[in-house]
């Protein structure tokens, strides 16, 4: 009895959670005439891929997708290398002031992105970086949370292997890339996956730091399409939305464990 109630309640919650997403997919495969009637039934009678063809072929959407993929790739790579380098430098290389540095980095976690959107825009325009890949990547290269996560993980790794390699005459770069990076793979997975998710979905900075259609990322492109049109082609917009969610869902189903641990840690970012 109790078990049945629990199951029923969960089924109810799952349905409310999934119905809007199913509606998104359903609307993306409907023909125009059916769309206007806007019925609440979720399974279209004659599914069609015309909206997907339209979105991918005719519009600038493919370009948005390319931009998002390129930017996410650069940002994930940059964070993996540079965030772990700085964390390693602070944790292991007898840096003076590394404690002060980590405190500053942690303090930065509390400053919301909104506070810096105006000065960041001004800075980018001084540097002539507005509407470039520089503007889309540089602000995301300095995610303090990633440094903190790697720094914390390094505290649990004994330095014996690194010391042994040094005694064998290995230089610091070799020690880091050959010995340390493989040892910290678990935390690098968390950093990489969560950086990808945050960056792929990010809106505020790409929104204010780009001007031309060619430089938009997927979220900015979708949002501005919905703003600019007098009458919105909902079928195509939903098809674009579905396409934009696919990479995220693939990553989600492959790496759920890392995502959960990253989100739990990311809670301190607020």
């Amino acid at each position, binding site marked *: 009895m109790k078990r049945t109630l629990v199951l029923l309640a969960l089924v109810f919650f799952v349905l409310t959670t999934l119905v809007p997403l199913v509606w998104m997919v359903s609307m993306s495969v409907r023909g125009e005439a059916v769309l206007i009637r*806007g019925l609440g039934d979720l399974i279209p009678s004659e599914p069609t891929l015309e909206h997907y063809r339209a979105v991918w072929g005719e519009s600038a959407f493919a370009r948005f997708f390319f931009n998002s993929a390129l930017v996410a790739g650069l940002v994930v790579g940059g964070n993996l290398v540079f965030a772990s380098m700085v964390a390693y430098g602070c944790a292991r290389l007898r840096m003076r002031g590394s404690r002060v540095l980590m405190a500053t980095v942690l303090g930065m976690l509390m400053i919301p992105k909104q*506070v810096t959107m105006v000065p960041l825009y001004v800075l980018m325009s001084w540097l002539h970086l507005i509407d470039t890949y520089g503007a889309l990547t540089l602000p995301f290269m300095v995610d303090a949370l990633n440094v903190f996560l790697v720094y914390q993980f390094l505290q649990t790794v004994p330095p014996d292997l690194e010391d042994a390699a040094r005694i064998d005459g290995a230089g610091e770069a070799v020690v880091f890339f050959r010995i340390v990076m493989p040892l910290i793979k678990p935390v690098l997975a968390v950093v990489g996956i969560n950086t990808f998710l945050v960056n792929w979905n990010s809106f505020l900075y790409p929104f204010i730091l780009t001007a031309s259609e060619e430089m938009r990322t997927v979220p900015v492109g979708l949002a501005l399409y919905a703003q600019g049109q007098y009458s919105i082609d909902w079928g195509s917009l939903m098809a674009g939305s579905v396409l934009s969610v696919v990479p995220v869902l693939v990553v989600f189903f492959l790496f759920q464990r890392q995502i*959960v641990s990253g989100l739990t840690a990311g809670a301190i970012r607020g």
Partner: protein
Amino acid sequence: MGGRERAGLLFTAPWLLTFAAFGLFPVLFSLGLSVSRFNPTHPDAARWVGLANYRELLTDGTFWQSVGNTLFFAVGTIPFTTAIALAMALLVHARPPASGFFRTALFVPTVVSLVVVSLVFRYIYAPTGMLNAILSRVGVEGRAWLQEPDLALPAIMAMDVWAAVGYYMILMLAGLKAIPREVYDSAEVDGAGWWTRLVHITIPCLRPILLFVIVINTIRSLQVFVEIVVMTQGGPLNRTLTVVYYLYETAFYKLRMGYGSAVAYALFAVLFLVTLVQLRLLRFGRAVGD
């Protein structure tokens, strides 16, 4: 300087320089802007105005309207988000069949971008959308959910609850797992029922996590922006104008970047206070055994 220390400098320099330019500098520069008049199309006319921007804030009716809307948003969503997330976490934690599937399914909206969520709900709320279609089936007349002044903000708030609960459920689930089994065993011996155990054991044990969830949700709710850009742009009649949307409009439409920065710092001051509370709670949470 030893070889290792020099290596340390080389290892930290690339990130630190980028951080100084794009992390630290904007924060300080923002403070400077907030006491200036600055229009990016006339940079030569920029000048220091002291606290004039902050004084203007005190009497700016639109700003206070945005503060009111934002507070309404926070107060009107957080109790629902917390209660529903707790209910979901308790249900999944009760280990029904396929609890892994349920957890995953409830968590999915968390990874979908807020832009996409907002677009889908804008369509659901549209006059010819799903919500009105369902309502008409049960004989209720449809509404223009995002165009009517009294409905627009509550409609966005309902969407926010839908989009946010999965994340807080995961945090609460972690908290539930940390409660030792023995606590329940002794209660069961004493004959405590389901409700008694929930009120007298589970919720008190979960208190640190619950407080933590409420605080981070407060911080997030005070920064609502994307939903407004995609769904209403502050309208109708400024009834969905949030503080961050007002900040955006002031800085990037009216090009009053100094005044916009003052809005940003006012928001920051509030968030900073909330964060201080959060830090105290975190310390408390760790002492209890997070």
